[in-house]
């Protein structure tokens, strides 16, 4: 599903590479944690998957497509197959829960009837039934993140990228978020989650890829956050 082959990324005006000869394979339906300290290259990894950045060398395949051969024109179609969740939720403050989720479908031109059918289903999947008409400011952080996950998943992507989704959320609420991610993963969606949260990684017992200074230092199935903890 995601295939990195010897990928190096150096940002302009920087000597040290953000990713240094990284090779990794993520299969369809896997749940992978991407761990490591700040600046270790986790976010760069996610940005490369979305083709928001281009690698300096190496090849990246996502959903069977070689990203270096994918024209800019087709990048939006790649992104329709990838859902994204961030630490800061990125909801539209002037739209309610339903509208925020529907927005993702409206802007890719889905018919209204389809949107009316699918959006309530997803809102229910993330556990926000009955809150469809709340505004984001009326929701707790955990609930806002559920809205973001509903929006990321509403188009049934093949891959879900989560960049520190529990970063702004207290541990008790984080468990709920992880349950939703797990539920999404069980539908066959590949989930790639960058995180700092050792407790969550340890409790989930999923594959862990650890980055340090742009290099993969550990790739372990059913791993924990780190030996030191």
């Amino acid at each position, binding site marked *: 599903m995601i295939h990195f082959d010897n990928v190096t990324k150096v940002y302009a005006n920087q000597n040290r590479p953000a990713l240094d000869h990284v090779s990794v394979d993520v299969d369809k339906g896997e749940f992978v944690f991407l761990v490591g300290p700040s600046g270790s290259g986790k976010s760069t990894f996610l940005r490369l998957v*979305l083709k928001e950045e281009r690698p300096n060398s190496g090849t990246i395949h996502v959903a069977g497509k070689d990203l270096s051969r994918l024209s*800019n*024109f087709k*990048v*939006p*179609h*790649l*992104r*329709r*197959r*990838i859902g*994204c969740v961030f630490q800061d939720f*990125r909801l*539209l403050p002037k739209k309610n829960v339903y509208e925020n989720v529907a*927005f*993702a479908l*409206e*802007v*890719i*031109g*889905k*018919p*209204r009837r389809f949107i009316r059918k699918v959006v309530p289903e997803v809102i229910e999947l993330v556990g926000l039934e009955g809150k469809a008409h709340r505004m984001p400011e009326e929701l707790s952080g955990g609930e806002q993140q559920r809205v973001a996950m509903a*929006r*990321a998943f509403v*188009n049934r992507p093949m891959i879900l990228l989560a960049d520190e989704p529990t970063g702004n959320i207290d541990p008790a609420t984080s468990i709920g978020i992880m349950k939703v991610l797990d539920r999404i993963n069980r539908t066959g969606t590949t989930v790639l989650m960058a995180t700092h949260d050792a407790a969550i990684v340890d409790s989930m017992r999923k594959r862990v890829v650890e980055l340090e200074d742009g290099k993969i230092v550990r790739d372990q199935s059913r791993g924990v956050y780190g030996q030191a903890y």
Partner: protein
Amino acid sequence: MRANFIFSEVWIGLRRNLTMTIAVVVTVAVGMALLGIGLMINSQVSKMTNYWTDKVELSVFLCQKDSAFESCKGKPPLTTAQKTQLQQTIEGLPEVAKVEYEDQKAAYEKFRRQPNNKVFLTVIQAGDLPDSFRVKLKDPDKSQAVANSLSGQTGIANIVNQREILDTQFGFLGKLQWMALGVAIIMVIAATLLIANTVRLSAYNRRRETGIMRLVGASNLYIQLPFVMEGVIAGLIGGVCAAVLLIITKILIFDGIQAYMAVPLGWDTLAGVITFTMVVGVVICILASFVTLRRYLRV
């Protein structure tokens, strides 16, 4: 669905940036009106040129008794035989189409009949106006050459080339036209920059929305179209204002000076000018928006 979504986005954008939108509308209106006026003067001038150059003639005035002209000093006026001979000489020139003799009496009649000359009639008598040949040319552009070749002839007091009089008038109109076009170009540049700025502000205001749109895989067209439409709508409103200004200009100014222009500027010309300025306005808006968006909404 799609159209609905885009138009609601456009409406939000225009309302949030109301001051900038008004600035764009006004600049486009003034710029396009000036461009239109330049074009109207242009078509008026070319119509007049066609009309008048057909009527251009050389007036060859002959020496009178005691004529003050240098070329007549100390020479008696031409006899009738000499006049006939001179007429034949002029007719013999290859560029000349027709020569008419106008004697003092006919000249005075003509002079008297022109309403503008009423004041002069108290001092001017029939004998004061010279005899003349009215020379029609085959090609009005050759008038200067004919005038030159005749100027040395005995008995000719002076030659008036009507073409020169026309040229001064057309020259003035030409300057007006260039001035209007010059200001129009400056306004068009200003409009382009303003539109670019408006679109940029608009893109900045909605960076959250566009960020999410990019993320969920909205196509570039879908992301950019609302912004481009904003520019186009502002440009169109400006174009309509410009059209109104041009119609007022035609009625108040061009129709007002019709008496001096001899050829009217028709509504068909105005319609053409308005269409052209509208198209220019909208194209500028589209280009300015797209160029700006390429910088601010990159994939």
